[in-house]
């Protein structure tokens, strides 16, 4: 049984701007299956509905049609079993790094006496030991995202939904965090669905890459990435295999971006 099963999902929004003129279709007939412990990347042109799909998976919104099953059961709203990491971090600025991670523990009703210890553990996991008492405005972008990841992990979700989490970071920090994320994934065994604009990022991180069409979005193809475990000192991104996979996806997306531009 797959961990996540998206079947025939559609989502449309009423067009508020022009009053009664028909709804905007964001997603149309999306089918996707993710196995337990998999790392799947999702790429697509701007506006294709990637973030909408994530919202549906997290339970913050409901599909207009189709079903979403997690562990074989339909989802009924948001819950701590699915963690979500946003591009803009969404850290609570009035709480310290430790306080933000504790928020996740409070959400799952962990007893107060255990919280600080567990929160420290998750901050150590993302490499932020010693920064527990810093406030978000005292942290760099990369650190903020680490705290955000620690916070989502603290709820002990089986699934981690990541919405372009490294897009707001500079290139070097992004590469560092990509390797960090892979390490965390290997240590925790979570199922990860990672949305990105960057083909490089998708091929580097994902075991499989799902390519979405332009709006209304649907899954065009899912490509296997048989590149083996990432070793930090190799420049995998320059290897011929990597570039071949990258080019394949690039060609697929190019057609989509052009047709999106024509609409």
């Amino acid at each position, binding site marked *: 049984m797959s961990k996540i099963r998206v079947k025939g999902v559609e989502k449309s929004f009423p067009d508020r701007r022009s009053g009664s003129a028909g709804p905007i279709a964001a997603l149309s007939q999306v089918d996707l299956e993710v196995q337990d412990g998999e790392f799947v990347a999702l790429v697509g042109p701007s506006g294709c509905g990637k973030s909408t799909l994530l919202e549906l998976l*997290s*339970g*913050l919104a409901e599909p207009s049609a189709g079903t979403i099953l997690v562990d074989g059961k339909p989802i009924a*709203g*948001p*819950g*701590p079993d*699915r*963690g*979500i990491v*946003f591009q*803009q971090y*969404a850290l*609570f*600025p*009035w*709480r310290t790094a430790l306080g933000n991670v504790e*928020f*996740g523990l*409070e*959400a*799952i009703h962990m007893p107060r006496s255990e919280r600080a210890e567990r929160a420290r553990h998750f901050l150590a996991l993302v*490499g*932020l030991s010693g920064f527990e008492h*810093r*406030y*978000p*405005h*005292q*942290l*760099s972008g*990369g*650190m903020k995202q680490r705290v955000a990841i620690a916070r989502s992990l603290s*709820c002990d979700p089986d699934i981690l939904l990541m919405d372009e989490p490294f897009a707001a970071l500079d290139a070097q920090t992004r590469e*560092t965090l990509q390797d960090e994320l892979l390490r965390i994934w290997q240590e925790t065994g979570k199922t990860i669905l990672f949305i990105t604009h960057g083909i490089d990022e998708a091929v580097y991180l994902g075991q499989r890459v799902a390519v979405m069409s332009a709006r209304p979005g649907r899954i065009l193809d899912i490509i296997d990435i048989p590149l083996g475990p990432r070793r930090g000192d190799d420049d995998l991104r320059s290897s011929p295999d990597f570039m071949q996979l990258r080019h394949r996806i690039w060609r697929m997306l190019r057609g989509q971006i052009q047709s999106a531009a024509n609409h």
Partner: protein
Amino acid sequence: MSLVSTVRTKPPIRLRLARAPVIVLSSLRTATRRSLAIILFCLAWEVLPRTGLVDRVFLPPLSEVLNALHQLALSGALATNTIASVLRASAGLALAILLGVPAGLVIGSSRRIAEFIGPLLEVFRNTAPLALLPVFTLILGIGETSKIAMVLYASSWPILLSTVNGVRTVDPLLVKAARAMGLGSVRLFAKVILPASVPTIFTGIRLAAAHSILVLIAAEMVGAKAGLGYFVNAAEFNFQIPQMYAGILMLSALGLLANFALVRIENRLSAWRTP
């Protein structure tokens, strides 16, 4: 692993001690620069009446005013009136907070209530509170109750409106993140919306404090038996001019102190806001 720290760390003790004289000197210079205008003003206040450029009867020199202030302090009149005013203003402000903040939280949380009551609130907010002074005097007389009620009325609007504003301008991404973790409406309110609104609410409290002093003094001038507003008015009526200015100086000091204290608290509460 390169983690960039954006926190400024202090230089070692050795360096700090060596730079101490420079720091003291530059602080003195800054202090002098900042009080220069006030010092010049005081000098003018002392010199101009003495030289006859300003009528001494209507504006006594600063030294006479300070002397009167000293006498009033010794006689206890200053204390009595100041305490009376401070108590009234504090009581009114405290009540305004107790009523205004919860009301603001409710109105801010419900779009329907906000839309319903919003226009009426705008009418009251834009009506100068002092215009309603006769109403309070009519209904509640000239005792403590009417004064405190006046302050309550005038202070409530900034507090209410800034609370509503604070609730409505919480970053929606934060609400989304909390909801995604499975928080229901009650916990969402307590753990996200409330803490996020605190700085805005406190700004309203600070503004309300300024309003409250203004309204109180006016109310005391109209009808009271004690208080700084009453005192200043009575002094003018009895042609005790230095005493009148002494009372005004006291009011000035009070306002400055209150503002200073509240700004300090506001800065502490808003420390987490992105600078």
